[in-house]
């Protein structure tokens, strides 16, 4: 008898073994580079590997999940980020600046926090009635977070988008990204009952305006594109989108006219080679060292870009090119593009329009963020300081990326094996 379970599932075991091999080689290289300090990394890497296996087995046994593609891509990218951060620790341990692998330990904690948030969000959005009840309070919380950020925020690298509590600094706008999508997406009955998107436009103008006040222009662009995707998916009205774009363009010109310091932040754009030891230093170093990495990279810990400011945060794509090589760097970009195509194609089969809108917005947001980072460090776009999803060092970004993956995961009916059988029964 040919039951549904016998239909060939995703080869999660083989994929996970391959990912583990990749990470074991990476971690071995990091520890060899660390020399006598290698013991400081063993526990960090061991915990990371245990967590990814434990999560997979837990989901496989508890809800009989067979689709792990998105989680595996996230683990794979997180592992690359963790290795690069660890090599930075290795440098600091060698020259005596640090006594512990603190960056790597923190990065591991952020990955764990991200995974927990991913699982919690998956549970929360599994029930669309619960989502409908939570949307109004979440909108209020988002506004309150951004307001608190404007009042309490610290000016770091030109943007007032950081808050420090108890020695931990975080970017509230990263978490608001997730809440922004949560508020914007809605179930079909809600969309048809209240066809107007005016309330959502007011909410979005408030959020994006707050980011402009904080001078966090990169995140503002990310929010704006997400807003366009959500508005289009909610209304299906291309004229509304065109009007919004024209209004945004006029607004941008007015800001540049009345606040010229905003334009000054982008004065280096397309002129980086005029100031290779000044304002164009980061991008010129990224271009030079990325090229020196070639197709196969120089090996972990062997690069030179690590000595540049923000190497493992804003410039981490350059580090991937230099130390892992151009092939892996391009594979990472293509995998994000594939996630977007998958999301757009799979949104039709989503159980609710909430999932379809949330998933498309989340995928679009990740792609825009990736583009701003990659094209920013290579001087094809102005450098805005947004992070490379899953790879850049930093907690807020890591947690928000994992939570965005929960939205993308929600369109996959295989993530709910029990209900899949029911759906197929009447086919």
């Amino acid at each position, binding site marked *: 008898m040919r039951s549904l379970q016998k239909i060939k599932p995703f080869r999660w075991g083989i994929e996970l073994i391959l990912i583990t091999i990749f990470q074991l080689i990476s971690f071995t290289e990091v520890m*060899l580079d660390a020399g006598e300090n290698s013991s400081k990394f063993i526990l960090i890497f061991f915990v990371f590997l245990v967590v990814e296996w434990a999560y997979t087995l837990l989901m496989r046994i508890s809800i009989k999940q067979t689709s792990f593609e998105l989680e595996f891509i996230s683990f794979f990218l997180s592992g690359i980020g963790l290795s690069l951060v660890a090599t930075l620790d290795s440098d600091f341990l060698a020259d005596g600046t640090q006594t512990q692998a603190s960056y790597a330990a923190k990065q591991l904690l952020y990955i764990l926090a991200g995974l927990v948030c991913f699982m919690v969000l998956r549970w929360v959005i599994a029930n*669309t009635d619960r989502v409908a009840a939570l949307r109004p309070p979440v909108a209020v919380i988002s506004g309150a977070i951004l307001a608190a950020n404007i009042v309490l925020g610290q000016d770091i690298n030109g943007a007032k988008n950081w808050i420090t509590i108890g020695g931990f600094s975080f970017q509230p706008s990263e978490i608001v990204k997730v809440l922004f999508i949560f508020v914007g997406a809605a179930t079909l009955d809600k969309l048809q*009952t209240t066809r107007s998107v005016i309330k959502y436009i007011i909410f979005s103008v408030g959020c994006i305006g707050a980011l402009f006040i904080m001078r966090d222009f990169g995140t503002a662009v990310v929010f704006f594109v997400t807003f366009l995707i959500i508005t289009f998916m909610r209304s299906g009205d291309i004229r509304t989108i065109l009007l919004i774009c024209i209004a945004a363009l006029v607004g941008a010109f007015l800001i540049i006219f009345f606040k010229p310091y905003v334009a000054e932040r982008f004065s280096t754009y397309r002129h980086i080679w005029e100031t290779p030891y000044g304002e164009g230093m980061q991008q010129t170093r990224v271009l030079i060292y990325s090229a020196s990495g070639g197709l*196969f990279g120089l090996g972990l810990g062997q690069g030179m870009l690590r000595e540049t400011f923000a190497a493992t945060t804003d410039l981490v794509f350059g580090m991937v090119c230099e130390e*892992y090589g151009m092939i892996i760097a391009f594979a990472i970009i293509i995998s994000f593009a594939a996630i977007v195509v998958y999301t757009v194609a799979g949104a039709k089969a989503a159980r609710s329009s909430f999932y379809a809108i949330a998933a498309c917005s989340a995928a679009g947001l990740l792609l825009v963020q990736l583009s701003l980072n990659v094209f920013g460090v290579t001087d094809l776009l102005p450098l805005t300081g947004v992070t490379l999803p899953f790879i850049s060092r930093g907690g807020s970004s890591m947690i928000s990326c994992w939570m965005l993956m929960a939205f993308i995961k929600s369109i996959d009916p295989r993530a709910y094996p029990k209900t899949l059988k029911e759906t197929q029964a009447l086919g």
Partner: protein
Amino acid sequence: MEFIIEYSRYIFPCLAVIILLGCCSSLFSKRPKIKTVAFLVNAKSGESVPVNYWETSIGRSNSCDIVLSYSTVSRFHAVISRRKDTWVISDTGSKTGIFVNGEKIKHKSKINDGDTIVFGNIAYYFSAPDFGNKKDTVYISALVSKHNSKVFLLEENTCTIGRDKSNNIYLNLPTVSRKHAELTFTNGRWVIKNYSSNGVYINSKLIYESCRLSDGDILDIGGVLIRFDEFYQQA
């Protein structure tokens, strides 16, 4: 140290490409198709309208999932949504309202299999017969005759079709060859292999060699139409 770095430089890209390619290709290839989850049956004509989504909009507008072109039906009349253990119908601002079993609903109402739903004087029966009773359900691939709805369960890994009595499915017609075709279960999928000089039509497309079958494919074996059900439900 140098040995590991030197060789891992080449291993990394190979592994990364295999891993990401595996994940991305699986995202696309293993995506389940959209399936019918319930039906709305017109009480007057008996016409059955499939409900293909967990959230289905109903109205006069062409942008609705189910279009009811009646003047008494609003452009966006209702939404039928499936929840974890029930179905819910919502009135999305219709002028004539929605009646479930004769009672007008205010905003939302639960609906069950067999309920009568009236959208602007047009009555439908809601049909979701198997919902909520799935514990003993078994899924098996099957061939279903389009002519008489006779079901042949594909219980073995191979199944032959032809005019000769030794075949698993015996079709006594002159247009059918002695051994016309064979179905085999390989790598998690059913594949049909043609043995006849007349070939086999799959969804009206003539094939002479092998072809992977998908759920709902219509096979034409010497003029006999057979539907392939990959997930036939057997209680």
